[in-house]
């Protein structure tokens, strides 16, 4: 039933979302404005769009390398995190395990650790192990960074699945691995998609650890963007271009799981 009030509110929703996202529109515009328009004393709304800032971003700020680093580190760490989180969450949620609740709580509590408190020990540990400024070092750190939240979310999803199917599969002689892989995974697709996306996004946007642990070879996109302001002047054009570039993979991911997002969260996270 759609009352006139609801219809009015629906129009309101569109307007509110459009206004809310105006800063994004502004950033995207800035990234294609000529430099003299950006530096004008008054904001300009009419201009000839140019791609010069995108060129600058790649040529002067070595952005291709940062994108490659981020891609390697984040994709590999997300895959490892998801695998470890799945088997852990399965054990915590579905198996007879002494102290499962206490352990879940312990893992969850590590999600609330402030980064600045452990960043310096990370730096020292990376020096001892020779993993400073390496992809491997960052991958290990991001696996640890993503695990608590991933385990917690997945455990929520797995707790909700019906027992009967699993019991039947076990009576049919399926092993643990087959049960997780062939029975539980397909039933928990929404939850797994949501968890993977959050793991991916948090690692993609992580800044503090990358700032402490990388300097040249393994610099990720957020650190590279931050470096763009320390040079004599803030170059708003290339900077906006960098923002747009880092946002594109996020947007693709978000639209891919759009169907799962609300449903997935409704099933698991908020229980």
């Amino acid at each position: 039933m759609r009352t006139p009030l609801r219809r009015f509110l629906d129009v309101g929703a569109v307007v509110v979302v459009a206004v809310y996202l105006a800063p994004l529109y502004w950033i995207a515009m800035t990234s294609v404005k000529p430099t003299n328009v950006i530096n004008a004393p008054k904001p300009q709304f009419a201009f000839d769009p140019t791609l010069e800032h995108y060129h600058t971003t790649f040529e002067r700020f070595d952005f291709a390398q940062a994108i490659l680093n981020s891609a390697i580190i984040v994709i590999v760490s997300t895959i490892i995190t998801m695998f470890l989180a799945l088997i852990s969450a399965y054990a915590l949620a579905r198996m007879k395990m002494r102290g499962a609740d206490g352990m879940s709580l312990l893992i969850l509590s590590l999600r609330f650790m402030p980064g600045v408190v452990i960043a310096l020990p990370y730096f020292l540990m990376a020096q001892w192990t020779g993993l400073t400024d390496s992809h491997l070092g960052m991958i290990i750190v991001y696996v640890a960074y993503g695990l608590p939240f991933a385990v917690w979310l997945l455990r929520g999803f797995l707790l909700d699945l019906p027992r009967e199917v699993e019991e039947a599969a076990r009576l049919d002689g399926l092993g643990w691995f087959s049960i997780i892989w062939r029975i539980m995974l397909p039933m928990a697709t929404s939850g797994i998609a949501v968890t993977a996306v959050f793991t991916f996004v948090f690692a993609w946007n992580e800044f503090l650890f990358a700032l402490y642990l990388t300097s040249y070879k393994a610099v990720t996109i957020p650190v590279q963007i931050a470096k763009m302001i320390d040079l004599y002047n803030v170059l708003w054009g290339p900077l906006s271009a960098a923002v747009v570039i880092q946002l594109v993979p996020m947007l693709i991911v978000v639209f891919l799981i759009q169907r799962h997002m609300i449903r997935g969260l409704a099933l698991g996270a908020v229980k």
Partner: protein
Amino acid sequence: MAVPGLAGSSGGRRQPFLHLSENRIAYLLVLPTLLILIGLAVYPLGWTVATAFRSDNLFNPLAARWVGPRNFEFLFFNDDTFWKTLRLAGIWCAITVPVQLILGLFLAMLLDTTMRGIGILRTLIVIPVFITPVALGLSWRAMFEPIGGLLNYLLQGVGLEKSLWHTHPDTALLSVMIVDIWQWTPFVTLILLAGMQGISPEVVEAARLDRVRGLTYLRRIVLPLIWPVVTVVLLLRLVDEIRIFDVILIITRGGPGSSTLLASMNIYSIFHAGRLGVMAAYGVLMVIAINIVVISFLRVLHRQEKATRQKVSA
């Protein structure tokens, strides 16, 4: 898999397999996660606790020695900045969290509808959550620029005074707050929407038939049903606001003066001043504060769960 031959196992719940009980297999499955978290969360935390009781100096590591609670005494009695950062953290959380919750709830109500294309609208609104805070902070800084920035242009357009935004001690905190609230309100919306979608259609229909609408509907029907979700989102936001770092570093570096020197930023500046012991002591206090928040929230959640169960059985 870590245990070979698992796929061939069969039988009931308690039947031992490879001489391992289900309990043991469960522990084996959790083991990698536990090891990683002990190595990369518990151990570094232990290092920080140990350092908090030493006189470590970044520029003279050989002079490091045990000094007892002296670093904590310094923070409590000799460091004005410490109390200032506490006050700032209080103000910060007391404003950002409620504003995000109220705005988030408002947006969630607007988007909890069956209109065509609502999926796209819901996806669009979450975009801010997915932007790197560093990049977002810089973009907002461009808009804050007192000369040539978009915001002052808009202020003048509606006949208001220009503001110095992040470059003045009086307005810097508010400026960073705006960025943070803008980024994280959609997150609250997303989680609350998930909660609202979980309300059964029968309840919605019954409310409609009883002509329960608007604010009454929100207060009497929606809020009580999604209250556990509200508690969870409140906890997540509160902890993240206590730890806030990226946008502060990018927009103000804690300044001007110390007007935006929140906890994480303060730890970062103490580190740059080379006082590892004091830095660690501050970090330990921060972890304790966060844990108090988390534990009290989990208690409340637990009590809510019990209360719901009693209501159901009654």
